[in-house]
């Protein structure tokens, strides 16, 4: 049984209050139990349970052979995962932080993403690459990058980014079951930000479908991951000023849920896109282009983007200045409605 997006778990299915990191742990555990081909690889994920505790306790239960502490070598992790995947295993590789995925970029770009196409489907390398991303937790440099756009421009991989514990588990399970490679981005800032009811056992959240987290009529706010709460906060403040915001949590960054975006913008005629990565080259421009392609005649004002600045993510004393805030979103909302 696949529980799809809009259906939340059935009333009688048991749930538990979980943070996002617990939900991820639970999702990994669920798949380790259900499919013996699932194996986890990464730096410090075994005995240590991961630097964020995403894999806490899993090696104890499933053994060193299925929850593998690897050498410190991202290209090696992804490169060997290609071999494992081709041979029927389902590697779930952790990059300790998304900023450390770059050494593996070549393997992902030239093999993981292309193997199926290259061989007309004879071989493929489905795997999940988990990557905690984003600023706001006072981590050292590089740790805080948001690199989704480097993967949405790479045909052959899907990119997923949950904003809630429920979606995190359901999307992770779906990603592990997906026949294609998935970059699974985890907003560190949201790891322990809230708890919610998460069903026990297996359930899926469909890849490729966004979630309308709030209905509204005047303007559409589009966000994902750690920016969803920021958008929600801005929406609340705008509401108080009489501007009704529709808020969309994209959840999947490749492929985009064009239908949901178009439908909403056609209704509101306005949009603010919020993301943490740099504006130039950011996914916001892709969304803008979806709106251009589908909803040109509906637009009542230019589309606004509130993004990280076009500067490297700074050391943490400046990171709050780098990150989009509800205030900046609110200004863009006003700019748009007053256009």
């Amino acid at each position, binding site marked *: 049984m696949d529980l799809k997006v809009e259906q939340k778990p059935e009333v009688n299915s048991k749930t538990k209050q979980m943070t996002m990191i617990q939900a991820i742990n639970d999702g990994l555990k669920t798949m380790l139990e259900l499919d013996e081909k699932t194996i986890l690889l990464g730096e410090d994920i075994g005995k240590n349970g991961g630097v964020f505790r995403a894999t806490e306790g899993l090696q104890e239960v499933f053994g060193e052979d299925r929850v593998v502490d690897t*050498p410190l070598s991202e290209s*090696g992790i992804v*490169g*060997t995962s*290609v071999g494992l*995947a081709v*041979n029927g295993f389902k590697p779930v590789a952790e990059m300790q932080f998304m900023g450390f995925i770059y050494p593996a970029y070549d393997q992902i770009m030239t093999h993981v993403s292309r193997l199926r196409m290259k061989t*007309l489907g004879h071989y493929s390398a489905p795997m999940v690459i988990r990557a905690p991303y984003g600023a706001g937790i006072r981590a050292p440099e590089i740790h805080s990058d948001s690199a989704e756009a480097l993967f949405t421009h790479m045909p052959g991989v899907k990119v997923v980014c949950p904003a809630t514990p429920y979606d995190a588990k359901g999307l992770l399970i779906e990603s592990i079951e997906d*026949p294609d490679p998935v970059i699974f981005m985890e907003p560190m800032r949201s790891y322990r930000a809230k708890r919610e009811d998460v069903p026990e056992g297996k359930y899926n959240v469909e890849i490729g479908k966004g979630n309308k987290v709030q209905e509204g009529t005047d303007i559409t706010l589009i966000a994902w991951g750690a920016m969803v709460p920021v958008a929600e906060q801005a929406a609340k403040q705008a509401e108080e000023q009489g501007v009704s915001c529709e808020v969309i949590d994209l959840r999947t960054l490749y492929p985009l849920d064009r239908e949901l975006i178009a439908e909403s913008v056609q209704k509101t005629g306005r949009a603010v896109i919020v993301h943490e990565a740099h504006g130039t080259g950011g996914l916001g421009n892709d969304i803008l282009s979806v709106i251009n392609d589908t909803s040109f005649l509906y637009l009542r004002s230019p589309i606004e983007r509130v993004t990280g600045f076009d500067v490297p993510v700074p050391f943490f004393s400046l990171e709050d200045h780098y990150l989009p805030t509800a205030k900046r979103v609110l200004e863009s909302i006003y700019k748009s409605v007053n256009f």
Partner: protein
Amino acid sequence: MEEQFPIKKVMDDQGNLIDSSYEEKIDEELVRTMYYNMLRIRTFDRKAINLQRQGRIGTYPPFEGQEASQVGSALALKDGDWMFPTYRDHGATLTFGADMVRTFLYWNGRHEGVVPPKGKNIFPAAVPIATQIPHATGTAWAEKRKGTTNIALAYFGDGATSEGDFHEGLNFASVFQTPTVFFNQNNGYAISVPIEKQMNSKTIAQKALAYDMPSVRIDGNDCFSVYFEMEKAVNRAREGSGPTLIEAVTWRTGAHTTADDPTKYRPDGQGEEIVHPLDRLEMFMKNYGHWNEEWISETKEKIENEVEAAVEAMENSPKANPADLFDYVFEQNPEHLEEQKDQYLAQLKGD
């Protein structure tokens, strides 16, 4: 270090066995298999160069001079084993069971060219240098996990040893003791860069010391040395004793690719003293009573016919299908991609 890794030979340049104990191990069947495959791939190789000159295929990287390395190593594998070749290892893949028509197709820019026959585990030739090395480690690791005795063989050149993936792949293999054989064809050059500029070490075999991995340096133009040392490494891998690095010292007779001009970077006369592997095998066969003119000419004819037929089949095969551009990116196309496909195919039809 060079003394620590002497170049192992079974026969000398004149085709005389150096260690006579090999005489019984080298039976008629092995000799003929070796000769047949080496002649076959050389015929393929020369044909490919000609086809390229005539504009019938794309740029092609010849392997002439490396036939003993490729055939000797490929023959040590069994069905179920895995091969991770580079663009220059079609001699090895053909020997292991790749389809010749498809191999020609590959050099004609066709995706069909990388699809191996059923049951043959041959990965697409790695184009980004050294990236296949961790794949071979991962695949061998998978076989080990599954409890099979299958092994994985990675081919790579001297230049490839400079890339990080060489290092990471060998490190993983040594840590997880995967059944992988890392088969280096040291042909002296990476395009124009001679090995002295590629590395400070005199041998590639010694690089295994970094991983406490067994390694051996062999005469890559001596098909028997290649075969028997490969066999040892393969057996060790099958038995669960982990990976091996083999450095096969060989020589690329021709250009890096048909687009390359080796006279630009090779000193005059370099490599001329090298006895070509097939000539060496021929001398051996004559020396040890394996030379049979009738069999030889039958074999030649058979091979020439096969190669000609393959060229014909390549040229008669249906044109590349534009839908293939779209149909294998994902298991199932996302909507926007399906749209791109539909629009484009409709436009093509309109033409």
